[in-house]
């Protein structure tokens, strides 16, 4: 169970959210500037809340009232960024192996091949990262996060940089990820369609606050509003 009660002032913008979720895939939905990425960064430990609490089950990661802040590298929370952030000086298999090395986990050939098969990246293992397509990069980033054996996986608009065809290419992998790995996920997007495919629970963020919370049904009738797209275009 993920529990977040956090306040954070970022310049003019103030984030003030509280929710707890048992969901296998919790969708974080909102337009650009709603605070989705800030919230995910707080969960990952990359951003410290001004006030509040972040906990996974009984493990409290942030509690400002006790001055507690667990740094990102001790959280075991995987993070898949919109821009993949593969290490350019390492090849694909070294990228995949990075989390295992850093966490001092023993090499597990089965786990490795399960993830490689799940994401269909076997043919890419010897490649350098520079010539990969956007979809391939995102699959490697997913595999890299998974192989660090996280207890929670954060996905911040993992399809955001991809065109419609690439999105359609990756989405089935995410569904398999949800059904086969059992790692709970927080999935950030401004596309309600992705959440209807993936999410088991949805948090709707508006201007730094939780506007609605519930099953993906709360998104029924919500398409990506044109004014939201216009807002995005402006950013």
């Amino acid at each position, binding site marked *: 169970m993920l529990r977040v009660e956090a306040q954070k002032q970022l310049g003019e913008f103030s984030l003030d959210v509280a929710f707890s979720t048992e969901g296998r895939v919790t969708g974080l939905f909102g337009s650009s500037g709603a605070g989705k990425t800030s919230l995910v960064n707080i969960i*990952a*430990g*990359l951003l410290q809340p001004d006030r509040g609490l972040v906990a996974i089950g009984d493990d409290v990661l942030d509690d400002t009232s006790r001055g507690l802040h667990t*740094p*990102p*590298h*001790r*959280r*075991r*929370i*995987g*993070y898949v*960024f919109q*821009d993949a*952030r*593969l*290490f*350019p*000086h390492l090849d694909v298999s070294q990228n995949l192996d*990075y*989390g295992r090395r*850093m*966490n001092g986990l023993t090499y597990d050939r089965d786990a490795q091949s399960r993830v490689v098969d799940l994401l269909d990246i076997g043919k890419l293992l010897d490649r*350098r*990262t*520079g*010539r990969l397509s956007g979809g391939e990069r995102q699959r490697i980033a997913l595999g*890299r*996060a998974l192989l*660090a054996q996280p207890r929670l996986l954060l996905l911040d608009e993992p399809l955001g940089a991809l065109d419609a065809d690439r999105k359609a290419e990756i989405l089935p992998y995410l569904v398999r990820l949800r059904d086969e790995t059992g790692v709970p996920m927080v999935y950030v997007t401004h596309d309600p369609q992705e959440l209807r495919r993936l999410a088991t629970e949805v948090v709707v963020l508006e201007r730094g606050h939780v506007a609605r919370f519930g099953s993906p049904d709360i998104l029924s009738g919500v398409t990506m509003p044109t004014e939201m797209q216009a807002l995005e275009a402006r950013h």
Partner: protein
Amino acid sequence: MLDISPAEWTAILLSIRVAVVATLVATPLGIAVAWLLARREFWGKSVADAIIYLPLVLPPVVTGYLLLLTFGRRGLIGAWLADHLGIVFAFRWTGAALACGIMSFPLLVRPIRLSIEAVDRRLEQAASTLGAPPWRVFWTVTLPLALPGVLAGMVLGFAKAIGEFGATITFVSNIPGETQTISSAIYTLTQVPDGDAAALRLVGISIAIAMAALVASEIFARRATKRLHGL
């Protein structure tokens, strides 16, 4: 050109030894300083910054004289080092290496600092979410990505060290076989009649060493840059 006398060989080898030792000792320190300046805010940072760049703007004779005052036999640090650790800098080749290291330090630090500043911090964040503590992020992400700058800094530092003259001759004098580098040998040769041919030979050799260092750094930098773009 090829008729190099034993005395000239001594000066050449000494110059190389001094510059190599100065560069190798200064590099780890330079990386640490560059990282601090690039990634940390601390009290007195602008003063620290100025002190590091001071040898670049001070007359080399001044730096040499200050070294003599602090690291000389009776100098504050020099006396302590000589009495307790048996390390003597004054009028030794090690002193030449110290002078060259300090004179080349600003040139060594600057490219390293710039390349560390250019490392995408989002990659460092990604590494930390994968379980890497800060020091491992540095070793596995920041430093490898800053490698072209480290190499550029080392070559610049080496070039400065091998050509250093003013601070070295002030601090450790011009003793053949101990502190007489190529530069001070050329200087001596220009002061005596019939020294021109020998001076020209040494000039040619300095040019050759400098060119070799530049070509080597270019090759390394190209390879490193290619790696950085994931190719």
